[in-house]
C-alpha cells in the first residue's frame, strides 16, 4: 500500500470552539490508484487531501506513506517530501501572477537545485505535454481558466511525482473545459501510472475515478443514494485501468 491511514484526526481550535475536521479516518490507498474524495462543503475533503499531501500533520492517528509516518516528520522533512513525492493542482490554479507559464512550471524545480538550463528544458517539456508550448511566455492573466489549469498540471507533473493531488481541479471551469482537464488528468494518469487523488463535489468527475470515498463531517461514510435518472450509471465506478507493464 502507498498510503495507510489509521485513526487519523485533525482538530482545530477557533477561540473556545473545537472543530474536528477529520474524526478518525481509516483508509488505504494503493499505488497507481485513481481515487476520488467526495463530500459536501465542510466535510473535511480538503483537509484529508492536505494530510495526504503532507501540507499538514494529523492531530492524532498515523498516516503512513511509503512506510514513513508523516505525523512524526518535522517541517524540513515534510518540505522534502512535498518537493519529491507530490504534485498539487488547486481549484484556483494558484499560479504566481508575475511569472510566465514557463516560469511557473519552473518554480516546482527550484527546490531541486538543478541548473537553469535543465530547469528550463524540463519545464518546456512539461508544458508541451499539456499542449501549451505556444503559451509559455504568457503570464496567468493572459491565459484562460483552462490554460491556467493546464499550466498548474504541468507544474504538478514536471517532477514526475509519485502522487498527484488535485483539489477541485475543475471547480472554476466551465463544463467543456472541465471535460478537457479531467480528460488530460486521466490520460496522464494512464500514461504514467502515478497515483491520482482528486477532491471533487462533481459526481461526473468522481465517476471517472477507479474508486470513490465519501466524507461526512470528517468521517468516511457510504456514498448517498442518488435517485436522479441516470444517477446509478454515473455513480458506478469507472473500470480499473490496465496495469502498466
Amino acid at each position: 500500500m502507498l498510503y495507510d491511514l489509521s485513526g487519523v484526526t485533525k482538530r482545530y481550535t477557533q477561540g473556545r470552539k473545537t472543530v474536528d475536521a477529520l474524526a478518525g479516518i481509516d483508509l488505504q490507498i494503493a499505488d497507481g490508484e485513481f481515487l476520488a474524495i467526495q463530500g459536501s462543503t465542510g466535510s473535511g475533503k480538503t483537509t484529508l487531501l492536505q494530510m495526504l499531501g503532507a501540507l499538514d500533520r494529523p492531530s492524532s492517528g498515523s498516516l503512513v506513506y511509503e512506510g514513513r509516518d508523516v505525523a512524526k516528520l518535522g517541517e524540513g522533512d515534510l518540505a522534502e517530501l512535498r518537493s519529491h513525492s507530490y504534485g498539487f493542482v488547486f481549484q484556483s490554479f494558484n499560479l504566481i501572477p508575475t511569472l510566465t507559464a514557463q516560469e511557473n512550471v519552473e518554480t516546482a524545480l527550484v527546490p531541486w537545485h538543478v541548473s537553469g538550463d535543465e530547469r528550463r528544458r524540463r519545464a518546456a517539456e512539461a508544458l508541451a505535454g499539456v499542449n501549451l508550448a505556444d503559451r509559455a511566455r504568457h503570464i496567468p492573466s493572459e491565459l484562460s481558466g483552462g490554460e491556467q489549469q493546464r499550466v498548474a498540471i504541468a507544474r504538478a507533473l514536471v517532477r514526475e511525482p509519485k502522487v498527484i493531488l488535485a483539489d477541485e481541479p475543475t471547480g472554476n471551469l466551465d463544463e467543456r473545459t472541465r471535460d478537457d482537464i479531467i480528460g488530460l488528468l486521466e490520460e496522464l494518469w494512464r500514461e504514467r501510472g502515478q497515483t491520482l487523488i482528486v477532491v471533487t463535489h462533481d459526481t461526473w468527475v468522481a465517476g471517472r475515478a477507479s474508486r470513490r470515498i465519501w466524507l461526512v463531517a470528517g468521517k468516511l461514510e457510504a456514498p448517498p443514494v442518488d435517485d436522479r435518472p441516470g444517477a446509478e450509471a454515473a455513480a458506478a465506478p469507472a473500470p480499473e485501468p490496465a496495469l502498466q507493464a
Partner: protein
Amino acid sequence: MFFTYIYRELRRRHRQALLTALGLAVGVALVVAVTAYAGGVRDAQDEVLQSLYGVGTDITVSQTAKQGEGGPQSFGMQPPDASQSGKKFTRDAITASPGQESLAATRVETISGLDGVAVASGSLSLSSIHVEGSFAEMSGGGSAGGGSATQPAAGATPQAAASQAPIKVSSFSISGVDVTDLELGPLSSGEVTTGRSFASADTNANVALVTKAYAKQNSLAVGDVKKIGGVKFEIVGIVTLPSGSTSSDLYIPLARAQQLSDNAGKVNQIYVRADSAQSIAAVKKEIKATLPKATVTTAQDLADQVSGSLASASNLADTLGKWLAIAALVAAFAVASLLTVSAVSRRVREFGTLKALGWKSRRIVGQVLGESVVTGLAGGVIGVALGIAGARLITALSPDLQATMGSSAQLPAGAPPGAGAMAEALGGAAQTVTVQLAAPISLDLALLAVGLALTGGLLAGGLGGWRASRLRPADALRRLD
C-alpha cells in the same frame, strides 16, 4: 529564478515599492543633510579655532598680569623744560601685549619634557607704538615729566593744558617666533605667498615677515625695510593668515623681539602639541601643576568660549538636528517594515503554494529579503541624492556665521586725552571671526546613507520574511484572496 522573481514582483507592486523606497529616502536624506550640516559647522569651528589658535596646537600657556604690577608705559609727553613747551615730539616704544605677564623661556623646555608633550614652542607678542604730537603749553609751575599716555605719574597733579595739539598714535603688532619650529605657534596656519619664510639661520637676523593685509595697507613689499624700535628689518616674505585670526602685523625672530623689548629670555605665550588627542587633558593638568599661576587653555576650552551665531548653529546641529534625523530614520524604518509585512500578508496564498511545491522557509524568507534589499538600495540612492540637494541648499542659503571670543580692553578712570587711541593701539578688542557655513558631503557619508537604507530594507525584509516563514501551507492555502 531568484532575481527574475524579485524584478517581476517589484514591477507588479511598483507603487508600493516606490513608496517604501521614498520613505527610506526621506529618512536617509535628513540624516545626510543634518550630518553634512553638522560637519560644516565643525569645519567652521575648526577654521575659527585654527585662526585663533594656529594649526597643530593643542594647548596654549600664558600668564595674566596682576593688577597694579609693572609701571605704566611712559612716553614722556610732557615737555622736559619750558623751552620745549609747544614743540613737536615723536616717541617710539615696544611693549609686551597688555594683560599678559612674561614667562621665562626656560619654561618652554620644562613643558617640552613633560609626559605626553610632543613639542612646545614659545613666542613673544609685542606692540610697537609711535606717538607724535606737540608738547603741551606750560601754565604756571606745573610739574613736568613722567606723564604717561594711560595714567598720570604717581603723586603728580594732572595739569590741565590750556592748548594741546592732538596726539597721533599709530602702532603695529609684532610677534617674536621660534624660527627653528614654525609648525607650532602663530605662523603655523599661515602661508608665505611671496618671498620666503624664516629659516633656522635667521635666529638673530633682522628679518621680518609681514602679513598681506599690513603690507597692502602700508605699501610694503619683499625687500623693503621696516624700522622696528629704531632698528631696520628687511622684509623677506609676505604671509597670509586665515581671516579673523589673531595675527600680528609683523613677525620677527624671537631672540630679536626679546632684545628689542628688553625681555631677554622671556616669552608671553607657549604653544604645546600633545602626542595624542587622548593625552591633552593629562598634559593640561601637568602644566597646571608645573605652572600654577599660568592660564592653560586647550582647543576645547577655546571652543567652549566661542559665542555668536556659529555657536548657535553648533547647538542646533547637536541637539535638534541630531534627534530630528534619528526620529525621521526610525519613522522611515517603521513605515518600510509595515509596508513589507502588509505586502507579505497579501501574498499568503502565493507563499503557501510555494511551500506546497517544496520551497523551504528560508528560501521564501530569502525572496522577501531580496525584494526589501532592492527597495532599500533604491531608497538609499534616492536618499543620497535628496541629501546632497538638501546640503547644497543649506550651503546656498546659509548666512555667514560669526564666532566671537575675548573681551574689550577697559580704560582706567581719569585717563588723559589720547589714552583711548593708545588703548586701542595696545589691543584687547574682542575677536570676531566670520565664516561661511558649507555642508560638505563626503563619500563616507554617502556610503553611510546607503548603508542605513539597506539596513532599513533588511529590517523590513526580515520582519516580512519571518512572517512568511511562519505560514503553514495548509493555512495559507485555506485563505481566500
